[in-house]
């Protein structure tokens, strides 16, 4: 077990480093001088040279990278070009909007998907199974931003149940904040439930075929207990991996949701930064999301043996 944990950690660390390197060098591909970008076209050559020295841009690239890495490791992501704000606190601030949406959506999707997927597999090829798979396929074929717009049209504009715009931070008014994230959470949960239902069903179908399930049934173990104790842990392990991937995908695509529902989260920050060519912010958001994605998948890997102890054996 300790060896397994160590191996996983040793895989995650280089991935993070390489991700940081690719973000850094990607941003260096941008045409134009960052110092000139900060100061504007009217700057004197001396001022540009001074700022280049201050930012360390006159150093060789690998040195710049290591210095940058050192600062990032200490939580210093630099300052925004547009308003001079420190990027690190800005990221945390926006993440406080994004995180509840994504976590609630994944949680709701998993709670919805696992029972439906397992029941569909248990009643394989029945009408209920076909109906579940059809609904799941329809859900996962829904563009989330379109579903979001339609839910907004129906529940926001026609029925007036939720506010259409207006974000209030949780600290100020938790009740209104909950209202504001309700539709985005429902939208994302529905779309992602489609993927998870199919996965939960597929892995349950495979487990139900195994001899030990037949053996448990032959022993006279009640069917409910067979499903809960013998089938669920084994069938859940692959679904857990997918939940990790889904969480990352949601983070990657969150910009669209936050645009539909006018939420000031990480995704919106990234898109606004792209329009403003605010490279320190772009760099910060990309690295932040990639790091969370790697960490979530690491957490999933570490949780995996709880459901499927075989993986630690090799």
């Amino acid at each position, binding site marked *: 077990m300790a060896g397994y944990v160590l191996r996983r950690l040793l895989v995650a660390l280089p991935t993070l480093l390489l991700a940081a390197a*690719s973000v850094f060098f990607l941003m260096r591909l941008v045409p134009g001088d960052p110092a000139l970008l900060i100061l504007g076209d009217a700057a004197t050559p001396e001022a540009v040279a001074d700022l280049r020295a201050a930012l360390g841009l006159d150093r060789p690239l690998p040195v710049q990278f290591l210095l940058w890495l050192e600062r990032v490791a200490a939580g210093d992501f630099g300052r925004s070009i547009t308003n001079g704000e420190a990027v690190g606190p800005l990221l945390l601030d926006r993440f406080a909007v994004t995180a509840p949406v994504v976590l609630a959506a994944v949680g709701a999707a998993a709670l919805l998907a696992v029972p439906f997927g397992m029941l569909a597999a248990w009643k394989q090829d029945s009408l209920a199974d076909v109906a579940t798979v059809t609904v799941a396929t329809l859900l996962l074929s829904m*563009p989330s*931003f379109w579903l979001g717009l339609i839910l907004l049209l129906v529940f926001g504009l026609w029925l007036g149940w939720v506010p259409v715009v207006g974000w209030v931070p949780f600290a100020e008014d938790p009740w209104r904040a909950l209202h504001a994230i309700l539709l985005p959470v429902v939208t994302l949960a529905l779309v992602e439930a489609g993927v998870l239902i199919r996965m939960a069903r597929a892995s349950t179908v495979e487990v139900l075929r195994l001899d030990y399930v037949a053996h448990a049934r032959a022993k006279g173990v009640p069917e409910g207990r067979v499903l809960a104790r013998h089938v669920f842990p084994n069938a859940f392990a692959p679904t857990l991996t997918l939940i990790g991937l889904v969480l990352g995908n949601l983070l990657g695509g969150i910009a669209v949701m936050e645009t539909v529902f006018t939420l000031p989260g990480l995704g919106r920050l990234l898109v606004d*930064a792209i329009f403003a060519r605010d490279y320190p912010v772009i760099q910060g958001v990309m690295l932040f999301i990639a790091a969370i994605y790697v960490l979530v998948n690491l957490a999933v890997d570490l949780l995996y043996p709880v459901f499927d102890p075989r993986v630690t054996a090799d």
Partner: protein
Amino acid sequence: MRLRPNLVIGGTLLGFVLAVAAAALVWTPHDPVRTNLRRRLRPPSAEYWLGTDEFGRDVLSRLMTGAVTSVTVAAATVVVALLLGLAIGLAGGYLRGWVDRVLGALNDTLLAFPGILLALGLLAVMGPSRWGIVLALGLAYAPTVARVVRGTVLSIREREFVEASRALGNSEAYTLLRHVVPHTVAPVTVLATSLFGWVILSESALNFLGLGVPPPAATWGNMLASARPFMLEAPMLSIAPGAMIAACLLGANLLGDALRDILDPRDGA
């Protein structure tokens, strides 16, 4: 072979989208970019089947030319992703050793950026354009292709017929092309079908965010984005482009499922 509803429905949906795109190349009911402010936000009528948008442009014509953009961008992106992914996957899976380790590390790094995040980063550098999207999404999806190809190659290269080809004195390149590559066709075809749907979704999302094909060209994504303020007055503006994206995605998913069932006899998801 029994009738497969997935194959029929998926094929019909994708065929419909391709037919709409093909038709738009030769004919649209109106000029998709001509504005007429006296005819803004008209409901569907005999002259404007799907109504007009906030600039008085015909929604149906814009939907049709949007299909051309989405289909060509998606097809080009899938080709880029397949070529890159095949090259990386074949090299890694067949040569193994340090080549595989280096390529694998690169692949894992790209996979550390979820979904369209990598494409967003690349577009930030390249600036929004049609070919920028193709390159950005192509690079973003290539690692997925590479992983599938590598896995297939690794399982095939140890089989007796590959050994036999080498034992007969065939060159490595010949063995690879003649005996290994054909086995990747089935999984890659299944993947390419699903990829087509994912790319249309991602491309629409990027256009929705305003990071794609510049206006006034119509894309389903930018039509949806500009429809948002007029949702109540003209719901058709929001419904129509999204329905086209959903049709592509559903079509690609169903067709992908059907192809997997046909090409891969093992019982899968």
